[in-house]
Each structure stands twice: as C-alpha cells, then as structure tokens.
C-alpha cells in the first residue's frame, strides 16, 4: 500500500539509464583530448548534481518537519540525505578515477568541484552518527532537521568559498554545466541527468515505503499483542513514525 507506482517508476528508470549508457558508449563521440575515459563524465557529473540536489531537498523537508512536527517529514529528510550520501560516495570514486585517467593523479586539490564535494561529504558523513548519538527519538528528529537545514545552506556557500580560493590556479578542463558541450554530447548528458534523477527518486521511494511499511507492521503487531505491551526500542539512527 505504500509502494504504489514503484514498478512503473523502476522500469522507467531502468530504461532511461540503459538508454543513456547506450548513447554514451555507442553514439557520443570520444572527446578529443581525453579519449574514451572522458565518458565517465556522463556518470560522474549527473551523480554529483543529483547528490547535491538530494542534500538540498533533505534540507527543505527538514524545514517542513520543524514547521509541522510531523515525523513523516523527518523520515523523508532522512531518506533523501541517506541516498544523497550514497551517490556522493559514488561521485567521489568516479571523480577520482577520472582524475587519475585524465591528469595522472588519484586526487587533485586544485579541482574546486571535487574538493568542495569532499567537504560536503565529510559534513554529511556526521549526519548518521549524530542521529545515533541522540537517544530520545523526538529530539533526534528535531536536531537532525536543524542539521539538515544548516548543512543544506552550507552546500552552495562552501562551493563559492572553495572556488574563490582556487581561482587562477588550474584551467577548467570541462564546463560542468554542459553549456559548452557540442550538441550530441549535450543530449546524452541531459538524458543521463534525467536517468540519475529518476534513479534517486526510485531509491528514495523504495527506502521510504520500506520504512513506512516496517513501522506500520510493528504498530499492528503491537495492537495484536495488546496495548500495554511496550516495545523495547533499539537505539537507532533511523526515524520511527
């Protein structure tokens, strides 16, 4: 009852992603300087953009949570941030591979996007431990929301600061907005972004309905076994409804 429309969504995601990668491998031309390895761009950049948007969306859900105090908003914020963190790990790994292939180093400090991303990732890496360290569930939800809002606002500010610090050090190899890409590359790139966004939404919906179903089941179980039977709460970083 929670996973309505998930099947259609999953199929659409799968088709878009397969289509995007088919275009990447069989249609888009190799980039002149870097050759084949540049194609990781179609995975890396959409992943980075979607991850950042996921963090910001998590912050917006958190604002909703503080306004309404409905646990569902905390759960939404938690799931969005959770999946964005996973995508962020993917971004860092693919970025590192790309850097190695293109410039010969696994890590480049003068690539501001990559560096900002690492900082944002390190910040969000404390989100789950922080939740876990607060035992009272309601307090956990409130504090997590404050964290999500502050961190969400931090994302753009941090990018500005890091970029300012690295002006005139390294020429930008690729314009990541896709604005300067030739037509066929741009089309592939846009489809890849759509695919990655769909992937995010699918994962988000899956995780959300799993969590909702689980808490529904446990509340039904509680009703079956009698109201007075208080459940022993395990300590957890995940929100309960």
């Amino acid at each position: 009852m929670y996973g309505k429309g998930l099947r259609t969504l999953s199929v659409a995601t799968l088709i878009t992603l397969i289509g995007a990668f088919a275009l990447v491998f069989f249609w888009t031309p190799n980039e002149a300087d870097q050759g084949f390895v540049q194609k990781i761009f179609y995975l890396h950049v959409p992943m980075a953009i979607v991850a950042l948007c996921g963090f910001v969306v998590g912050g917006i859900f958190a604002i909703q949570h503080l306004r309404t105090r409905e646990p569902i908003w905390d759960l939404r914020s938690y799931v969005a941030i959770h999946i964005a963190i996973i995508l962020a790990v993917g971004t860092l790994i693919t970025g590192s591979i790309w850097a190695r292939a293109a410039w010969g180093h696994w890590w480049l400090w003068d690539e501001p996007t990559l560096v900002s991303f690492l900082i944002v990732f390190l910040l969000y890496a404390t989100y789950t431990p922080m939740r876990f360290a607060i035992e009272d569930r309601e307090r956990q939800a409130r504090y997590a929301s404050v964290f999500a809002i502050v961190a969400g606002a931090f994302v753009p500010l941090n990018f500005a600061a890091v970029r300012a610090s690295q002006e005139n050090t390294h020429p930008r190899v690729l314009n990541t907005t896709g604005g300067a890409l030739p037509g066929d590359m741009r089309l592939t790139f846009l489809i890849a972004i759509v695919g990655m966004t769909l992937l995010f939404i699918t994962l988000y919906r899956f995780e959300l309905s799993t969590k909702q179903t689980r808490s529904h089941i446990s509340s039904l179980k509680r009703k079956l076994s009698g109201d007075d039977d208080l459940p022993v709460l395990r300590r957890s970083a995940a929100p309960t409804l």
Partner: protein
Amino acid sequence: MRVLGALLRKELRLELRTLESVPGMALFSVTTFVVFHFGLNRPNIEGDLAAGVFVVTILFAGMLGLNRLYVADQEEGGFDGFLMAPVDRTWLFVAKAIALFTYLVVVEIVAVPAFGLLLLQPSILPVLPSVIVVLLLANLGFAIIAALIGAIAVHTRARDLIGPLICLPLLIPVVIGSARALEPLFTQGGAGTLETKWLLILGLYDLVFGLLSVAVFDPLLED
C-alpha cells in the same frame, strides 16, 4: 537587552569562577606553536605556512571552548531554568556566541604575540591592525557555528566528538577566508596587503550563518 545582560553576566561569571575554558585554550595554542616548531623542524615560518599554522591552531583551541560551552547548562539544569522564564529563547544563542567570541579574543591576545615571538619570521607589528580585522571576522564565524552546533552536541552521547566532527567541515570556508587573508600579511618583506575578497567571504559567511542560526535555534531548546 536585560535578558542578554543577565545571560552574559552569568556566563562570564561562571568562566571567571571555574576558569575552565580560556586558560586551557590559551595554553593549548601556545603549546601547539611549540609542537609545530618541532613538527616542522624550522626556527621560523612565514607566508602561507605561517597563516595555515596560526589559523588551524586557533581553530583547534576553539574546539576546546566549544566542548565546554553548554556543559554547565546541561548538567546543572540551566536549560530548564532558562526555558521557564518569560523571555525570547534566541537570546541564549546570542549570549553563547558573544561569550565564545570574547573567549577567542582573549585567547588571541595571548596567542598572537606568542606566535610572533616563537614562529613568525617577519615582524607582526606593522600588519597588526589588518590581522585584527581578519581575526574578528573569523572569530565571529566560529562563535556562531560553535554556539549552534554546541547546543546539538551537548545532548548527544560522545558530545566531545560529535561537536568538532560537525564543526570542522562547516568551518572550512572560515579557514579558507582567514588563512588566505593572513597569508600576504605574514609574508617576508611586508609586500602583502589585505585582500578585500577574503574579508567579503568571511563577512558573508558570518551574515548567512548568523541569520540562519537565529532562525533554527529555538527547536533545539524544547524537550
């Protein structure tokens, strides 16, 4: 203002009485300079290295202050006592930020001369006014973030770990701004002038997170 006065007076009185934060922070920063001397194995440093060593030392000294900031309120019921009063809760955040800002200023009154004496190659005196401007802006950013995150961290288990873990990445823009601003000031030959770009970044950071913290602080205080 009456409320802010009462809170600040209480805060500074507690610190004067227990001396739990400021002397420790000051001693920590001087000791860290000595440690850097041996770690780097240099008689003196200048330029970007000097700026980095100084900023990071103050940052870590500040973490000690962050960890103590709300402990008395948490353990001795200060939160409840404050919450039952008919006053705006945001004042607590403002008072804590001002208190921490003051602690940092006192620490720097010790740390800046010590740094000039122990490590810095060019004389610090000619650039002192510019250094003060940079440090005031950096202190403000630190105080805002620490007063906000400290209120989260004090309610967690392992609060001494969670607080710095969240604060360090959040403060990287402050580190960038202040280290880059100090770099030309600490360069041999005194050629460097203060770049307004870095002051703008620091100022913008203080403004954005100052307003944001005021907006989100209240929910941290409910039970």
